[in-house]
């Protein structure tokens, strides 16, 4: 729409399959969220609702590690290290956000305010903006 798939892959640094994986995780998460909110007697905890996101992060890390090892073996050492570093940064920021949000939903503590929970997302946005300038 606004971006072609090629531009998205270039900008985000994820492979098409990884984007597919994260979309699938979002779909599964939304289904579990609806089950949790609409059917309170379903017995789902917030940690279980967030499982698709954690699984997608884990699978994405595994996939990236394999791709980086293959790139390293093919002699593309700089590209392999840069790709691994970038994806791990993005995934760890996403993971921290998910953990904090889940913690907040479970405990409902006042100390964990939403500005703090969202801070990894704000950092992620700045990083994506910087990367867009480089890719452009």
């Amino acid at each position: 729409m606004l971006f072609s798939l090629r531009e998205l892959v270039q900008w985000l640094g994820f492979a098409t399959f990884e984007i597919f994986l994260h979309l699938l995780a979002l779909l599964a998460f939304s289904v579990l969220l609806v089950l949790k909110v609409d059917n309170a007697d379903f017995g789902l905890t917030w940690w279980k609702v967030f499982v698709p996101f954690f699984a997608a992060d884990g699978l994405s890390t595994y996939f990236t590690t394999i791709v980086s090892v293959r790139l390293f073996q093919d002699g593309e050492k700089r590209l392999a290290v840069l790709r691994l570093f970038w994806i791990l940064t993005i995934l760890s920021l996403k993971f921290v956000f998910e953990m904090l949000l889940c913690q907040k939903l479970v405990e409902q503590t006042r100390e964990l305010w939403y500005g703090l929970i969202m801070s990894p997302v704000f950092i992620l946005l700045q990083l994506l903006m910087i990367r867009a300038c480089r890719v452009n």
Partner: protein
Amino acid sequence: MRMSLAQRVLLTWLFTLLFLIMLVLKLDEKAPWNWFLIFIPVWIFDTILLVMLIVKMAGRCKSGYDPRNGSQNIKKKVWYLVAMLLKLAFCLTLCAKLEQFAVVKLAYVFIPLWALLMGGMIELGYNIFYVRRD
């Protein structure tokens, strides 16, 4: 005239940032605004995208346009239009639910989002498995 990647990224970044800031203010109870107001950046961004899409589709009606090279393109544009409308429907019903204008189950609110995600995944799956085999 096509915007450069940096311009498109800047547009997306700006509206996402504005929306997130307003969302945080609302969730932390610092801003007692209506949910429809919190979603203003989303409405503006969606309107810009819709206008851009409609202008591009209307370009086919110009005299001298050769429809032979655009049959695949128009299908894609129609899908994008449907996707935008689904996203808009999801945001509107979500706001109505959060403002408690209507007592509806969350499942009904999420139906447009599920349709959008499935459409997006079919398109991505086609790009991953079908195009690569060709």
